[in-house]
């Protein structure tokens, strides 16, 4: 094992996805923690606005599950400068996901050890039923992503596996719900059985072991320059002016959102960021 990624390093969906996209960006962002000027102008004028709106919706749903009076939340949503937030929140309240039940945990963190490596997931909502675990992830995409897109995401693998393995109770099937606030009637749902979870476990174990075994020169830059369009290290790698790539924008949006919500920018015990967008 190299010193680069130490034993106590915490893997999560963002850093694993970053590694899969570009090994070098993983090294710079999660190992060396190098601050670098992002190519802000490349990220479209709505990027920042979308981030803040998305984070605010997450907060409102969190507050809803904490038991704050929904009328107050509706007033807050209605007074938020971006009118989409109010629409999204009303969509949420009208959906099956607003049903309150026992054993629901909003913004809940679980961590497991896989082959000696720590793997962490912070769920928007996780609920435990007697023979089933439900994971809900709220999304605010402008265009409804395809089912295949979510199926291939590291997030799907990490969340379902951590949820299944973190429980002392014998493994229960896991259902993962991606709920898009602009498309409330079209949730994308994955049911994971034991066999699928085993495959995820093998893949993620291999991936984490691979990362920990790499020497510094093996953290190579991606060979696909489309991945660089929105990358904050674009100028570090001298890769300007590459053609836009939608998936890469999605990755950087997700990283921004998770850090704005204080989900993945911290090592264990580190000071969390302020969770809401309007800070």
């Amino acid at each position, binding site marked *: 094992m190299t010193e680069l990624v130490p034993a106590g390093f915490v893997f999560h969906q963002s850093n694993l996805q970053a590694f899969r996209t570009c090994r070098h960006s993983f090294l710079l962002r999660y190992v060396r923690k*190098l*601050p670098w000027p992002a190519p802000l102008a490349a990220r479209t004028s709505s990027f920042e606005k979308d981030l803040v709106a998305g984070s605010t919706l997450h907060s409102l749903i969190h507050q809803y599950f904490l038991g704050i009076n929904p009328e107050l939340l509706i007033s807050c949503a209605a007074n938020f400068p971006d009118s989409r937030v109010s629409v999204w929140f009303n969509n949420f309240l009208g959906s099956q996901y607003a049903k309150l039940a026992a054993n629901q945990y909003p913004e809940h963190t679980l961590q497991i050890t896989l082959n000696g490596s720590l793997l962490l997931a912070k769920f928007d909502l996780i609920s435990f039923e007697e023979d089933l675990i439900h994971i809900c992830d709220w999304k605010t995409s402008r265009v409804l992503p395809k089912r295949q897109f979510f199926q291939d995401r590291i997030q799907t693998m990490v969340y379902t596996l951590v949820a299944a393995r973190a429980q002392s109770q014998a493994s229960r099937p896991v259902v993962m719900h991606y709920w898009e606030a602009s498309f409330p009637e079209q949730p994308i749902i994955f049911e994971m059985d034991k066999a699928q979870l085993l495959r995820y476990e093998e893949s993620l174990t291999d991936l984490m072991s691979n990362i920990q075994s790499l020497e510094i020169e093996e953290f190579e830059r991606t060979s696909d320059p489309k991945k660089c369009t929105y990358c904050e290290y674009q*100028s570090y790698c001298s890769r300007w002016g590459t053609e836009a790539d939608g998936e890469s924008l999605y990755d950087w949006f997700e990283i921004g959102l998770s850090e704005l919500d204080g989900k993945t920018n911290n090592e264990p015990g580190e000071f969390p960021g302020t969770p809401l967008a309007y800070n």
Partner: protein
Amino acid sequence: MIYNSLIMNGILSLTPERMQEQAADFLAHPHLFLSGPASSGKTSAALLRLHQILTSDFNSRTLVLVPQRSLGEPYQSFLRNVNLPSSHQVSVQTMSSIVRRMIALFWPLIASHQVFRHPFEPPRFLTLETAQYYMAQIADPLIDRGHFATITLTRNRLFSQLLDNLNKSAIVGFPHTELARRLKSAWNGDQSQLTVYDDVQLAVNAFREFCLEHNLLDYSLQVELFREIVWPNETFQRYFQNQYQHLIYDNAEEDPPYVHDIVRSWIKNLQSSLIILDEEGGLHSFLGADPVSAANLVFDSTTHIRFKQNYVSPPPIKALLGYLQSSQTQKLPHSTISQALIITSKQPRFFPELLQSVSQEIADLILNGTTAEQIVVLSPFLSDPLVFELSRRLSKAGIPTQTLRPSLALKSNPHIQTILTLASLAHPDWNQPPDLYQAQFALSTAIPKLDPLRARLILDQTAPNKSVTSLPPIASLPNEVVERIPTEVLGQFEKLRLWLSSVDPSEPLDYFISRLFSELLAQPGYGFADVQEAGEHTARLIQSYQKFKRPVAADQGADAAYLGREYYKSLNQGLLSALYLPDEEIVGEPGVLIAPVLTFLMQNRAVEHQFWLNLGSKGWYERLEQPLTHPYVLNRQWQPGKKWTTDDELALGRFNLERTLIGLLRRCRGQVHLCTSDYSEAGIEEKGLLLTWAQNLFRSALREEESD
């Protein structure tokens, strides 16, 4: 025995004493108050306890509460190395960070109390700097109308003291409307000062009203809302009690009393609590720390363990500590003193010579086997020339240095200076052109092959009035200038000029900076290319602007052009002087640490050799001049109606000095090197209390020895 496990190796270098094992046993002592001096093993005992919790109570969560981030480092380091699946169940936080996050999360509850004019609109959190920005909007007109006329402070210091008053009222727990009354009742001097306190009250009242009108939350309002609305709320309590089952609260003495009030009312609902008090602490009293209030938490714990060991100090230092803490009538032998405190045989006349001899002593120590990380150089204040000169000399000897000091001014960084100057040139609508020197510096930093003299030749063509409003096209330069500058450099200059002149004034400043960096400055041939530090500094400047923009963008009419102009103006006025992101700026690789005394003390680490500089300075014990506030009067321990006298001031100075000396000696594993020159860093002869104390100590020991 948990401390023998591999996991704990490296965390505790000493085998825990029985007392530490007792303190770690959270089942036997669920609510424990642990006190003792620095270096007595309290934090090590807390780490043992945390390890016990993590390995025996997998599903519970622990809050490690510390007064400031640096004091959380031992816990974070432990958690980074412990590699347990339950490690994520521990959260290391300050109460300020909890307050801010909880206000954000429970904002709808606050909204229902209708405290603000627009309660359901989002809150706008202010940093110290953005609070000063808004305080300036309130106080500037007052100053212009003749208020605060007798006060000779820079406006920035005036604003910060006004805010400090509000903060004191919140953390001590009295209405801000009582500030003037309290300050007046303790005032013992010229009656004209009483009018100043009325001005203070006028300004803070207006500021608070302004905040309530615009949903602005400075630190004082955050604390008040948390204490009065969030904390007592049932929904919040249900949430918070579920969040944590165990509490470890270290260095409670460095927190203000409102934190102790919160902890006190919380303990009974926790499965376990450990409160740790450094008996000789309270170093942050001038910021509102209240060690007396912290000590009272002992009454809310079921067990009190007191550590008396000193795991760090060698015998001579221990003897000196004993002497300091006694009535000082029993003299110490000269041999003991000279083993603990090293003085140079020949005192240099000037400060640079002193730095030369300090560098030499450090080099000798390293040559004889001391590691650089075991050496610190301390001074009450750290000036740029001191840091530069000492680092330069040590670096020349191949010795790495690390500087640790409170946030540096953004403007003092050459990369940031360059960007800001270029930004002002690209935005003539800001009407804040740089002066000739700034433009010259920016050009020669942006284009390394353009030396300052040639940059000046170019600028002289357009800057007759010593301020630069635009860059001249190369076609307009006289032949004698063109001939003196290589064609390649002229091309780079022209490219920069054209780039700046094509900027859309309505582009947000962070976008502008990001483009300036990537499209120009980081390109081959320009000054930021392949300079990693330049990238880091640019990223920090962008983050600094974004922090400023968050609250200010909601102001009426605050478009991108307005925000950029206001940010630049505020930086120039010094309102945003300390907007570096980390609380404390650590510069350099691990090596000899150069730090202000207080900053080092708040790191809570021991070293073998301490070099104390500027011994004659009053900065070792005197408080800063604060004519608009008073940290010891606006304090829960202050007796109402009592006057603050010169005797109080002198007693405070002596007390501060003694506490600092004890704190430093307790963090010394080897020797203290007393470094003094005839003329101080400021070029004057200084004879402060510390220098006098040290001289008397040696003299009386020598006299004693001679008389024997």
